[in-house]
Every structure is written in structure tokens, then in C-alpha cells.
């Protein structure tokens, strides 16, 4: 009999625990001190403390997670996303400890984890990558030659770079020399390494990804596409499936290429190939995420496949329960990520107590969350509070549904991005289904203050006045009151 340890927290831990319950598999939660009373802890059958609030000493600590698995007799470890999910060494430690890691082998994780290696591997496997120089540029002459080959515009990038630094966009040949010298100087200054390389600049790209699933019996399938172009500072905020306006021909071609990519690294489990897609629907491999994605619900909603259940089945050595021939997309799904951040102050993170929290319910809605009202959104971890997803028979109905749902989301105590989400899904471009990764930048800034609300003002004054006067205006029923008082004094709540 298997037992599953979930090496994660928050909504994804809850998601995996629910799948375990449905399969009849016992589940073990792990938690840091910051999460001792979190929802995933109480949802699981067992829970083990793995360290202090800091991730490095808890959720990111391979040895502690493995010890927890050993102590509870867990046979499977589901890493969720983030934390240890793409850590090839941890996967190897699991193997050595005789615990099954729910995910691909360390070979696939390494091949895809190192971005230049992934690019080379994909190129060799016939997967289209963004055209560019073969590794670092030796000199300006080579830069010129490569640019002639791939055509302008191009991006000059620092080989050792990251975080958007040391990058220059070059629109035409006459700009190249100055940009080349500048980029090298900048790279040297920032990263102590002047090496640069060239990639073709994709203008107004869309970010579309393909979900794949592979089992240990030689089956590899794709589960179609997800449109993830609604991003702010490279952070996805809204995803949908199918990608609006994408031709079916491109969709299937991307699916086939994704399967090819997965096979090239002997992939097993659920994974995602991310592509850049240009306005002419040419697509280029960007990277592969060798784990479950945050946005997996939209794929589940349109394909009807339970990706977590398939992951667990595959990890237990069973064949996947689907085949390419039977897979199809039905209707449309949109996911909105609700973050604890303040749109009126540049989307600053807004940790704090979630004093009001009631996500919407209704037909076709799905909420993935890991909090309850009264929880504190910790500043130690990701600022995502919940994922609100809607499914409907078609895209216009789906937009109607997600807008109605967002509008009835009750939340307070922290700042959040719901108004921003409403702004995006209500925007002309989004509704038309014609947008790229620039969509968020085209929207006007939100008003920093909510409209005046006379009733709210009256309520605030009344409550303040009543508190101040300490006058008993309405007596609660005697029995209830005595009981409530006793329970409150005992530090317990009765309702």
C-alpha cells in the first residue's frame, strides 16, 4: 500500500491531498513553523514539522523532507511546483532512499534545467528554437554574420546574465556595433564576464505552452495548449485554454513537437513545454517545466483529465489512463491568480491577516486555495492566495462567468489584485482574444482609491460610535451570549 508525502504547502498541497483522498491513498503533509495551523496540515491524514519558516530550512531541505518520509513510512513524494520540484539532486536522493519521487527522472530534469543544454538538446531533436548564435559570440564579425543569417530585430544577451540585465534590442544593422560594444561593457560590469550571444527578437510574442504526460510504459501524449500571455513582470496572472485565435493546425503541430521534446529526454510524468509564438504563429521552444504547473486546472477543465491522479498513477508504475486518440478539448477555461499585492502601489506584496475571505461558488467554477478566512498570508512564501478558474461551453460564456465570479469574491484585510484581474478580463483586447505578452502594459493604471460609499461610511461611524459609547443596544439571546462569552474567554470560538 502506498502513502504519499506532499513536499509543499498552500493550494497545491491541498490539491494533491484531495487527489490522494479520492484514490484512497493516505497522505502526509509537511509544514514549517509558519504553517503549523495551515489548511494543508489539517487536510492531510498526518502532518510532520520539517523546520522553521525560512524555506531553505524547511520546504527546500531535501534531507528533512526525506526524514519525514522515512518517519511516516511514505512511499511516494509529490513535490508540487516550486521548492524541490525541479531539483535533480533531490530526485536522486529519493531514489537512493528508496522513495518514489512523483516526477521525471533526474536525467530529464538536468537536461531541461540547464537552459543552454536544453536549447542544444531540443535543436538536436528537431524542436524549433529561437534562431541565434551557436553559443557565445567570438567577435563582432561573427555577430554581424549571425544577424545577417537570422534577420533583424535581434537581442544581444549576456551569457552570464539574468533578471533582464545586460540585454539590448537591436532593430537594424547600423545599431549593431554600438549595441555589441555596449552590451559587452554592461555584461562585464554586471556579471564580470563580457561574453554575449544573439537571439532573434520575437516582437509581440505570445506565450503558449503545451501540457504533456508520459508514463513508464512508453506512452507520451500532449493535452493541448494553454495561453499564458497575460503576465506582469514575467509573472503569469491569467491563463486560458484553448489559446484564443490559435489555428488548430498550429495547435496540433505544437502538440506533436512537445511530444517529440518530451521523448528526447525520456520524460516520464506531467510536464510542460513553453513556446514563444509570433504573430504569424511561428513557434519556438522556450523551456520545459519538468513538473506540474500552477495553471494545470485550465487543462483539466477542458480535457477532463485529472493530471494529479495521472501523475500518481504513473509514479506507482501504472500506465496513464488516456491516449492521444481519445483526448480532446471541450469548451473553454480561464484561470485567474489572486495575489496578495497592492495594484495601487506598484503591486507591492501585501502580506497580513486575511480578515475577510469567501471565494465565489457556482456551476462551472473551481477554486484552488490553501487558506481559510482568518489565516495570515505569510511574507515568507509566494503571494498567491487562490486560483479562481471558470469553465463554460464557449469563450464568451467563460468570460461572463469569470467576471461574475470575480465580482462576487469577498476578500479583505490585505490588498489584492482582483480589480486588476477584472480590468484585464474586461479589456477590449482580452475579450477580442487578440493579445500578446504586452497586454498588461497597455492597460491604464487603476485608481488608487475606491469610490466613496456612503453606506460604508455610515457603518464605520456607527460601529465606532457604539464601541465608544459601550452601550448595549441589542441584547443577544441570553443562552447564546453566556455560551459565547465562556467560549471566548476560553480562547475558543463557538461559531
Amino acid at each position, binding site marked *: 500500500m502506498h502513502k504519499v508525502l506532499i513536499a509543499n504547502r498552500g493550494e497545491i498541497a491541498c490539491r494533491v491531498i484531495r487527489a490522494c483522498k479520492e484514490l484512497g491513498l493516505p497522505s502526509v503533509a509537511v509544514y514549517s513553523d509558519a504553517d503549523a495551523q495551515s489548511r494543508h496540515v489539517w487536510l492531510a491524514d498526518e502532518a510532520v514539522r520539517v523546520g522553521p519558516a525560512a524555506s531553505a530550512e524547511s520546504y527546500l531541505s531535501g534531507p528533512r523532507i526525506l526524514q519525514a518520509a522515512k518517519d511516516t513510512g511514505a512511499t511516494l513524494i509529490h513535490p508540487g511546483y516550486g521548492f524541490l520540484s525541479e531539483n535533480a539532486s533531490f530526485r536522486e536522493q529519493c531514489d537512493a532512499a528508496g522513495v518514489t519521487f512523483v516526477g521525471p527522472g533526474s536525467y530529464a530534469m538536468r537536461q531541461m534545467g540547464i537552459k543552454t543544454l536544453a536549447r542544444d538538446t531540443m535543436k538536436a531533436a528537431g524542436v524549433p528554437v529561437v534562431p541565434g548564435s551557436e553559443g557565445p559570440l567570438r567577435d563582432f564579425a561573427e555577430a554581424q554574420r549571425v544577424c545577417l543569417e537570422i534577420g533583424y530585430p535581434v537581442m544581444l544577451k549576456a551569457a552570464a546574465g539574468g533578471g533582464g540585465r545586460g540585454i539590448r534590442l537591436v532593430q537594424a544593422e547600423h545599431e549593431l556595433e554600438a549595441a555589441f560594444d555596449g552590451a559587452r561593457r554592461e555584461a562585464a560590469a554586471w556579471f564580470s564576464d563580457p561574453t554575449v550571444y544573439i537571439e532573434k527578437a520575437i516582437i509581440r510574442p505570445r506565450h503558449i505552452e503545451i501540457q504533456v504526460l508520459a508514463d513508464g510504459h512508453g506512452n507520451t501524449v500532449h493535452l493541448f495548449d494553454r495561453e499564458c500571455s497575460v503576465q506582469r513582470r514575467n509573472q503569469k496572472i491569467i491563463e486560458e485554454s484553448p489559446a484564443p485565435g490559435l489555428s488548430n493546425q498550429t495547435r496540433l503541430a505544437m502538440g506533436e513537437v512537445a511530444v517529440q521534446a518530451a521523448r528526447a529526454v525520456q520524460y516520464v510524468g506531467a510536464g510542460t513545454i513553453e513556446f514563444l509564438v509570433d504573430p504569424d504563429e511561428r513557434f519556438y521552444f522556450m523551456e520545459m517545466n519538468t513538473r506540474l504547473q500552477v495553471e494545470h486546472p485550465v487543462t483539466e477543465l477542458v480535457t477532463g483529465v485529472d493530471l494529479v491522479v495521472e501523475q500518481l498513477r504513473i509514479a506507482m508504475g501504472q500506465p496513464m489512463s488516456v491516449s492521444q486518440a481519445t483526448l480532446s478539448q471541450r469548451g473553454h477555461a480561464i484561470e485567474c491568480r489572486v495575489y496578495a499585492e497592492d495594484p495601487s*502601489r506598484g503591486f507591492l*506584496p501585501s502580506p497580513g491577516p486575511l480578515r475577510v475571505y469567501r471565494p465565489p461558488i457556482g456551476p462551472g467554477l473551481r477554486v484552488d486555495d490553501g487558506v481559510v478566512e482568518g489565516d495570515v498570508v505569510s511574507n515568507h512564501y509566494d503571494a498567491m492566495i487562490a486560483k479562481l478558474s471558470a469553465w463554460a461551453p464557449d469563450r464568451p460564456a467563460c468570460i461572463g462567468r469569470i467576471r461574475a465570479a470575480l465580482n462576487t469574491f469577498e476578500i479583505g484585510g490585505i490588498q489584492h489584485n482582483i480589480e486588476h484581474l477584472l480590468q484585464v478580463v474586461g479589456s477590449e483586447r482580452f475579450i477580442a482574444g487578440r493579445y500578446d505578452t504586452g497586454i498588461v502594459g497597455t492597460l491604464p493604471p487603476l485608481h488608487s482609491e475606491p469610490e466613496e460609499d456612503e453606506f460604508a461610511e455610515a457603518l*464605520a*461611524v456607527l460601529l*465606532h460610535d457604539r464601541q465608544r459609547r459601550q452601550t448595549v443596544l*441589542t441584547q443577544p439571546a441570553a443562552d447564546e451570549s453566556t455560551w459565547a462569552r465562556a467560549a471566548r474567554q476560553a480562547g475558543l470560538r463557538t461559531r
Partner: protein
Amino acid sequence: MPTEYLLEHGTHHKSVTVLEDHGDRAVLQVGDRRLEVTLRTLPDGRIAVSQDDQRRLYRTFRAGEETVVVRGWTQHAFKLTDARERWLHGTGGRHGDSSGRVTASMPGRVVRLSVAVGDIVAPGAVVAVLEAMKMENDVRSVGGGRVTAVVVQEGVAVESGALLVQLEPIGVE
């Protein structure tokens, strides 16, 4: 003897007086308008406020000095003070940050300090970087000035509102 309150909501200010309060019905004077509302607590804890055909649902809580009123996903934080007390103490309603204090806009860890004592800082310049929830966030000074004190060190955790850097004005403003 109804009390007159000063209600602050962001940059708005209003004078509000509770004229009558019968628990489920109340009359208020808001500026020069008279407002009569009915109130009711629903089983799920929401408070229904209505007047004629208009009706809205709220939830409320107290956060420090503020009374917070939530309606759906909108949130109003009100600061209420006794109007008479204010006149007596003469604090007025003036706010803002001409104090030269640069404070933490959220709880987090100071990952970088960009200024040292003696530096001259332009209005809106980044003086520190705070990390919270895996993200780095710039802390900017509202006004400009010369740094007279750097109160925190890199690596330490600070609460929201904590003083990070103190500036003094330069020249005549």
C-alpha cells in the same frame, strides 16, 4: 448629546454625526446630508445596510486605529476621531510625508541599502530594497533631502511602517 466625528478616508475628510441609533435603524448627519439607514446582520455575518431601494452587504473589522469596511472585494479603511478632541489638541487633518522619514511599506527583509549618511537623495529615489514573499521591492523616499541617519542594516527583518532612513531638507523648500 450626539458626537461629531471626523471621518478620514484616504485624502477625503468628512464630518459625521450619529443623530439617532436604534440598533437596526439609524440616522446620521454626513456633511450637510441627512442619511437614514436600516441595518441587519445576516446569518453569515454580513451586515446589510439599506435605504429605500438601495441595499448593500458589508463586513467590518478593526485594524489598529482604523475601522475597515469590506464590500465584495472593495475595502474602505476609515480613521475616526472625535471632532471636539481634534480641535482641542489641534492636530488637524494634515498628513503626508514632509517629515523626511522613509519607512518600510510592508513587512519584509532589508536586502539592500542604497544610501549612506550624508548622501543627497532626490524625491522618489530608491533608498532601500525590501524582500517580501520572494519578491524584491524598491523603497523610495517621498521627498528629497540629505540622509541624517540609516536606522537599519542589510539583512534585518522590519515591520510595516518601520523607520529605515531619516532625511533632512536641503535648501529652502
